[in-house]
């Protein structure tokens, strides 16, 4: 069963085409990566899934609900994390989690915060204002916020951007654990190839607002005769044909 259904999705910003006729669905319980360079349309696509950006045309259905018209019916079942959106700086981590727990209608807030505090090792800074946290601590806190309602659908925009390799690896492990424990659907936008290779069951490769490739990481590497996704990515953005060597194109 598909958690996300996107049909003929188009987004124009004045004369700029950000997303150009996207069609895809995301199966429940899967981790799907939107992979692409800067300006490929990944963040705009996620913003449209969340209802923060209105499409120029096309449909987005999440859990079978039309997100353009009825998004409040399902927002409590999803959540989002991005290093580009902060949690309030002057509130402590606990106050932040309490705020979002209440907004999302979490039943037993204290128990949920304790669970997340254990899971994400928040106890050392949970009473500290979010503005005083290090980058790694901030990521842990905002991931805890994103999981406060145990979302069935978790949307992530470059979840490990600007993190050191150790913290980034830790975040990826937590995401894998969360998917395994809850059977959640995860859609992440990234241009970190190693991250996508490790996490994703499926990759939607985007270029200039379109999905130009769709498959498992292994299938894509096989299709382009490459040993890693980074080379596949370079082939696609530089317009090389499937299976062609860079030398042949040059």
């Amino acid at each position, binding site marked *: 069963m598909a958690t996300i259904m996107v049909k003929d999705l188009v987004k124009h910003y004045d004369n700029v085409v950000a997303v150009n006729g996207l069609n895809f669905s995301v199966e429940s319980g899967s981790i799907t990566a939107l992979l692409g360079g800067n300006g490929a349309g990944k963040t705009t696509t996620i913003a449209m899934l969340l209802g*923060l950006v209105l499409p120029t045309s096309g449909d987005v259905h999440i859990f079978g609900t039309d997100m353009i018209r009825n998004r409040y019916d399902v927002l409590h079942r999803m959540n989002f994390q991005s290093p580009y959106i902060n949690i*309030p700086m002057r509130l402590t981590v606990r106050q932040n989690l309490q705020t979002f727990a209440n907004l999302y209608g979490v039943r037993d807030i204290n128990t949920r915060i304790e669970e997340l505090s254990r899971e994400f090792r928040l106890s050392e800074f949970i009473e500290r204002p979010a503005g005083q946290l290090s980058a790694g601590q901030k990521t842990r806190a905002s991931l805890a916020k994103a999981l406060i309602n*145990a979302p069935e659908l978790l949307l992530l925009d470059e979840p490990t951007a600007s993190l050191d390799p150790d913290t980034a690896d830790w975040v990826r492990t937590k995401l894998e654990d969360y998917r395994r424990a809850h059977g959640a659907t995860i859609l992440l936008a990234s241009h970190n190839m190693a991250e996508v290779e490790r996490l994703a069951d499926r990759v939607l490769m985007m270029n200039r607002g379109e999905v130009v490739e769709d498959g498992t990481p292994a299938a894509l590497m096989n299709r382009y005769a490459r040993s890693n996704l980074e080379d596949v990515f370079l082939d696609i953005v530089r317009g090389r044909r499937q299976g062609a060597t860079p030398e042949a194109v040059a």
Partner: protein
Amino acid sequence: MFSQIAIDEKGARASRRRVSTMVRRYAILVLGSAPRMLELAYWPLVQMLMWGFLQTHLAGSTSLFANAAGLLIGSVLLWDVLVRGQLGFSLSFLEELWSRNLGNILMSPLRPAEYVGSLMVISLIRLLIGVLPAIFLAYIFFGFNLFSLGLPIAAFFANLVFFAWAIGLTANGLVVRYGLGAESVVWLAIFSILPFSCVYYPLSTLPAWLQPISAALPSTHVFEGLRALMLDETFEPILMVKAFALNVIYFSGAYLIFRHFLKVARIKGTLMQLGE
């Protein structure tokens, strides 16, 4: 597989919970910081003292002020209700932009109307923190008790707060649409109506062509009402009815403007980028 940690709760109870959550979130910021509380009360106090001493001076030389002790102080206190009401409404909203949190708020189950409701409540809290000390000290320093004006003061207060929310909501809409580049609107919007609200002088003082514009502001009717009460000792309900009717129009218009700008921001894709 899912343990239903979040509930699919609809209706008034869920709405109340979300509104009170946002109010608590803003109240923590204000009540948890002594400098912020001081900042809220500081300017109304300075204003009240300045106008209070001027009133004392004028009372010795002008029969108008001798006959209506406290008129200037009453005017400045009510003007501060309008200013603090609007700033309390808009600054809480700006907090979300300054902390780059607006995206988190707008993708949560919190509805726009609930969000506006929470801004109204926190604006009242901030207003009381700002103005109550000035009201109290006006009595201590100048023997002027605003509450001695009786029930009409509640009508003045309600109308001014209502108008403050309408201005605040419009200013917030502009910030949603144009980003923090429009932040100065939040700080300056209220002062643009000061000359036309007839805070310290009667409506008849204005040139004839300006009077209809002034009469279209709810605040003008409140200050006219205050003067009638203090100078003639008569309460004129018709002025309050006019102010209230205008407020209904302005607030409805402001809400539509806010919703329109929110929609435009969703079309333009600026909500994710709003912030410092």
